[in-house]
C-alpha cells in the first residue's frame, strides 16, 4: 500500500513538473521503437520520452506538452533496457598493459551494456576505499558505461584477513568476492560470510577447490588425457559448492555462485534452492556455446576458468537457463594483450573478451529456441540488477533512461581485430550474428552510436 502511495506521489510530482515547464533542449523522444521490457512485461511498438536523465513517459503516458528537440527514429529497432553485466575485469589499476578503463567501458556500451560490475582482481586489489575512488574517477572521466565495484572479501585477496567491508560498502561497493583466490580455511570463509552479511553486502563466490586444480588445465576426461593437459575434475567445482552450501545452511548468509560450469553444479544449485536456501548463481555466456571439444587443437582463446566442460555439461547449463534455475548470464569479460595468448596452452592466461558478444550470443539462444526473447533480455537486465540490489535494468516511468537501440535485421560477422575492446581474445571470431546494437543511452545521454564503415 505504501509502495502504491509512493508511486502515485511520484507520478503526481512528475505530472506537476510537466505542467510547469519542459526545456525542449533536455528532452529526447525515441519514436516507434519496439520496446521490450521483461520487468514490466512490456513488448510493444511505442514512444519513449526522456527528460534530463529519466524516463517521463511511455506511449500514452507521455505528457501532452512534451516537446523534444532531439528526436530519435527507432522504427524497425528494438528499445532494450541497458544490460547489466555482473562480471568484468577492467585491468586498472596495475595491468594497464592489457587495457584501460575508457576502452573497455566504450566497448561495453557498444554491446548495449550500460552498467558493469568490476571484479577486484587488479594488481592492487580493490580492497580499500582509495582504489574504489580511483577507479570511479577514471570511469567518470571516460563517460561511457557505468561501473559498480565488487570489492575484495579479504585483504589483498590473500584469503586470511577480512577486508574493510564496512568502508567498502560506504564508498559504494555492490558486493564482495574472493575471485579465483583460495581461502586459508573454511573457518575464514565462514567469518567472511558473516562479516559481509553484517553490512548486507552480496557475496559473490567462485566455487573452486584449488587443491583439485592445476594451472593451465582443462576439463578432466578423455580429451585432456589425449592432449596431455592437466585435468580439472568436475569435483573441483562441486566440492567447493557443497562446502559453501553447508556454510550457508549454518549461517543463513545469502551467497551468489559465480560462473557455474557443470551439470552436477546445477543439480546442487537446484537442490539448495529447493531447500529454501538464499542461493543464486550465474553462468558465463561462453559456457553455453563452447565445450571441451573446442580445445581439441589447443586453442588458447578457449582457455577459461572454470574450464569449458563436456557437451553434456553445456546442455545441462542451457537447460538450467531455460528453466530459470540460473539467475543471470554475464560476459565474464577478460581482455588480454595478445602476448598473453600467444604461447603454448598451459602458459596462456585464461579468459575471453566478452562485452561485444554478450547480447548477440544471448539472442542466439533465442534463435536456437533455448529461451524466448523476454527471458533472454531478463537474464541480462533486471535479473542481474536485483542481484546487486539495483532497481535498474527496466524501462519504466521515473527510472533512469539507460537503454539501447538494437537493429534486429543487421547481419554481421565478428572480426576479432575489429573489437572495440583492447582485448582481441575472442574464440567467436568469424561467427555470424543477426542484429546489432546501434545506439546506447545512459541517463538519457547518447554515449554510443554505430558508425558504418
Amino acid at each position: 500500500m505504501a509502495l502504491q502511495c509512493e508511486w502515485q506521489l511520484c507520478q503526481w510530482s512528475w505530472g506537476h513538473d510537466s505542467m510547469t515547464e519542459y526545456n525542449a533542449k533536455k528532452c529526447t523522444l525515441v519514436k516507434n521503437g519496439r520496446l521490450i521490457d521483461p520487468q514490466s512485461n512490456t513488448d510493444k511498438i511505442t514512444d519513449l520520452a526522456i527528460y534530463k536523465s529519466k524516463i517521463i513517459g511511455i506511449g500514452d503516458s507521455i505528457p501532452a506538452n512534451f516537446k523534444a528537440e532531439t528526436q530519435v527514429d527507432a522504427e524497425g529497432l528494438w528499445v532494450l533496457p541497458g544490460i547489466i553485466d555482473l562480471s568484468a575485469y577492467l585491468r586498472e589499476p596495475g595491468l594497464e598493459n592489457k587495457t584501460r578503463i575508457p576502452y573497455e567501458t566504450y566497448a561495453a556500451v557498444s554491446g548495449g551494456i550500460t552498467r558493469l560490475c568490476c571484479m577486484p582482481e587488479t594488481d592492487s586489489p580493490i580492497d580499500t576505499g582509495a582504489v574504489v575512488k580511483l577507479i570511479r574517477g577514471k570511469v567518470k572521466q571516460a563517460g561511457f558505461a557505468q561501473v559498480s565495484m565488487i570489492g575484495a572479501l579479504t585483504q589483498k585477496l590473500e584469503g586470511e584477513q577480512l577486508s574493510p567491508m564496512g568502508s567498502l560498502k560506504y564508498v559504494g561497493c555492490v558486493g564482495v568476492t574472493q575471485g579465483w583466490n583460495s581461502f586459508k580455511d573454511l573457518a575464514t570463509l565462514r567469518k567472511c560470510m558473516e562479516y559481509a552479511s553484517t553490512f548486507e553486502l552480496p557475496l559473490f563466490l567462485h566455487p573452486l577447490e584449488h587443491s583439485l586444480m592445476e594451472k593451465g588445465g582443462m576439463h578432466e576426461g578423455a580429451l585432456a588425457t589425449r592432449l596431455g593437459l592437466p585435468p580439472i575434475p568436475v569435483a573441483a567445482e562441486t566440492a567447493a559448492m557443497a562446502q559453501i552450501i553447508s556454510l550457508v545452511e549454518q549461517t543463513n548468509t545469502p551467497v551468489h555462485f559465480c560462473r557455474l560450469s557443470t551439470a552436477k553444479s546445477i543439480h546442487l544449485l537446484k537442490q539448495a534452492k529447493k531447500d529454501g536456501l538464499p542461493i543464486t548463481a550465474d553462468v558465463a555466456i561462453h559456457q553455453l556455446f563452447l565445450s571441451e571439444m573446442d580445445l581439441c587443437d589447443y586453442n588458447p582463446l578457449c582457455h577459461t576458468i572454470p574450464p569449458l566442460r563436456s557437451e553434456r555439461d553445456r546442455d545441462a547449463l542451457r537447460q538450467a537457463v531455460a528453466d530459470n534455475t540460473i539467475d543471470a548470464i554475464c560476459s565474464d569479460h577478460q581482455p588480454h594483450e595478445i602476448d598473453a595468448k600467444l604461447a603454448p596452452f598451459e602458459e596462456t592466461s585464461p579468459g575471453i573478451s566478452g562485452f561485444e558478444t554478450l547480447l548477440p550470443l544471448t539472442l542466439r539462444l533465442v534463435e536456437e529456441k533455448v529461451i524466448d526473447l523476454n527471458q533472454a533480455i531478463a537474464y541480462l537486465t533486471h535479473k542481474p540488477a536485483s542481484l546487486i540490489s539495483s532497481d535498474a535494468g527496466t524501462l519504466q516511468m521515473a527510472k533512469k533512461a539507460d537503454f539501447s537501440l538494437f537493429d534486429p535485421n543487421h547481419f554481421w560477422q565478428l572480426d576479432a581485430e575489429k573489437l572495440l575492446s583492447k582485448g582481441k581474445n575472442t574464440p567467436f571470431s568469424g561467427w555470424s550474428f543477426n542484429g546489432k546494437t546501434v545506439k546506447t543511452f545512459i541517463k538519457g545521454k547518447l554515449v554510443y552510436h554505430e558508425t558504418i564503415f
Partner: protein
Amino acid sequence: MLPGPLPSSMQLTDEGKLKHFLTVEGLPPLLLEEILDRSQQFVALPDKAQVQAPLLRGKTVMNLFFENSTRTRTTFELAAKRLSADLVNMDIRTSSATKGESLLDTIRNLEAMGCDMFVVRHSSSGAAHFIARYCAPHISVLNAGDGRHAHPTQAMLDMLTIRQYKKDFPPLRVAIVGDIKHSRVARSQIHALSTLCTGETRLIAPKTLIPQGIEKMGVNVYHDMEKGLRGVDVVIMLRLQHERMKTALLPSVREYYARYGLTEERLKLAKDDAIVMHPGPVNRGVEIDSRVADGPQSVILQQVTNGIAVRMAIMSMVMGSR
C-alpha cells in the same frame, strides 16, 4: 598475428608428405611404415653413414631443449651429424627463457640466425605444435617431447624395435607398465600401436597413475601386474619419477617395486619369447630388476641404437618434403 587453434593436420604438406613431426596421432599407417622402412635402411648402413648419406648437407638443425635430456638430445645430435647437417645445441633453460623472453621471441631470434629445422623439447603440452604454427614456413619442427602430450620419435623407435623382433603387429599383445598419467611416451606409443593395428594394448598401473578416459584410446587397463602380463609379447616399462612419491601418487619406491616392478618371476607370466623394453633412463630396483634389464629378453640397448636410425629417417623425410 592472432592466437588460435593449432591443428595437427599441419604436419603434412598438401601432397601428404611429412613437413613437421609433432605427434603420431592422425598420421596414416602407410606413413608410419615408410618411417620404419627408412629407419631400417639406416640401421643397415655401416657406421660411417655420412659418407653415403649427406642428405642434410648445408642444412642447419637447432636442438631447442627447454627441458633437460641426455639420451634424446644426443641421438638427435648424432643423427643430424651422420646426415652431414650443421648442428647447434641450445640449452634454453640457462639462457633467454630465464631472462623473461617469450617463446615466440626466442623462435624469431633463432630463425633470424638462419636455420632449417628445430628439434624441440618443452614442458608444456602442445609447445611443438605452437612453434610449428608460428615459425617461418621453411622450417620443419620435430617434437622431442612436449609436456605429457607426445614423444613421437621415441614411439617410432619403439615400433622399429618391436618390428625387428616380432615382424608383424596384428597378432601382438603389448603391455605398457608404469606412470601412464604423466607419460608422453606412453601416449605416443598407444597411438603408434593402434595405427599399426596391434592386436591388444594393455596398460598396467595403480589407479593414481592412470589418466581418466584413457580407455577411449583403444587400450585395456589393468591394475594387477600379474593379470596384465599374462601372455603378452612385448613388455614396455616406463620410468618412474621419484617426485611422484611426494605428491601422494604412490606410497614408496619399495611398495611400487613390490607391486609393479618387473622381476624375473613376473616376466615368466609373459610369453616365453616376450621382449622387454624401456625408454630409459632405467631406475634399477624401482620399476625393473637388474637381472631383467640385463637379461636375455631385454632389448633396451637395441632401442637406443634404433633411436639414431629413426631420427635420421625422420630428419631426411621432413627435409625431402620441400
